[in-house]
């Protein structure tokens, strides 16, 4: 069963149709959860007893930081699947992750600086968490730069996949940096074992925002990946149908667009 799913998912026309249909189902919940999180985070949550209203930066900073890591893991896993099973759809997904991940990493860094200034007294410190997060931004930018430097898409896919996979070692370093080393940055409040260190009125808006950002990423990824799938396809009949280019009038050879592992 799993293999049937794997084959279907690896088929560009199937992926394209599925992604098209799925996008509104993640985009609209993202908007609704985001609005609810905004009302809860800016309006209903009480001010922090130490940080006052300054703590409200958490509702954009933590979801951005979460995405910076999650997007990288999705990118590295897709790149590995693309490399190992020569699956073009997986390469298309990996390539779509990079610009999204880079932008949210930058957002996490800048909102962190704006939070650090009033609370720590400095915008920037060469602290393990901050430095490893900056390295993550450079990994995304390096990945995008490498792709840009190679014109041939399949070659760019393979070369950038290796970079993405090697760079994944940075992800646990970022996550555990606040535990392994003395860091200015606080330890995780949500993603840890046991009780979260926040009252529900503060925690629920944060969870809503985390869900909203994650669903937003899914919508962005599905949209970009559709484009990347098209860029990797040549002369396939399904594209004519998907793009509304009329019936395939026998012109271009409609050879099988199924790219995936054969058993």
């Amino acid at each position, binding site marked *: 069963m799993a293999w049937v799913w794997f084959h279907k998912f690896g088929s560009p026309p199937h992926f394209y149709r599925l992604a098209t249909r799925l996008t509104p189902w993640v985009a609209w919940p993202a908007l609704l959860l985001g609005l609810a999180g905004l009302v809860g985070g800016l309006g209903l949550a009480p001010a922090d007893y130490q940080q006052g209203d*300054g703590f409200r930066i958490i509702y954009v900073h933590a979801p951005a930081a979460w995405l910076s890591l999650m997007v990288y893991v999705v990118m590295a896993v897709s790149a590995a699947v693309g490399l190992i099973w020569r699956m073009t759809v997986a390469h298309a997904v990996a390539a779509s992750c990079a610009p999204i991940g880079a932008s949210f990493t930058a957002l996490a860094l800048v909102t962190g600086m704006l939070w650090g200034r009033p609370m720590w007294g400095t915008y920037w410190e060469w602290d393990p968490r901050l430095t490893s997060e900056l390295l993550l931004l450079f990994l995304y930018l390096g990945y995008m730069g490498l792709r840009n430097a190679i014109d041939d898409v399949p070659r760019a896919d393979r070369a950038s996949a290796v970079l993405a996979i090697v760079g994944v070692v940075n992800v646990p370093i970022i996550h555990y940096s606040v535990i392994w080393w003395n860091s200015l940055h606080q330890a995780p409040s949500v993603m840890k074992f046991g009780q979260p260190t926040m009252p529900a009125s503060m925690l629920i808006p944060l969870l809503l925002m985390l869900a909203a950002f994650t669903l937003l990423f899914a919508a962005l990824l599905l949209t*970009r990946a559709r484009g990347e799938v098209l860029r990797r396809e040549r002369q396939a009949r399904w594209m004519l149908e998907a793009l509304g280019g009329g019936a395939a009038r026998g012109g271009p050879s409609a050879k099988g667009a199924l790219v995936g592992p054969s058993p």
Partner: protein
Amino acid sequence: MNLAHFLAMGGYAVYVWPCYALAALVIGLNIAAARRSLRSAQRAARRRLEIPREAGTP
């Protein structure tokens, strides 16, 4: 809670509001860029599929 009090963010307005503005900007740019990327790929795919046929190439 009046509006001025809300906007003041307990004295942290200069840090809190830029964060939210930047988040809105990053989200907006991401949505625009993703749509632009898909549309340009669709245009390129249409060109690949249709122009050779119109030009009479096999």
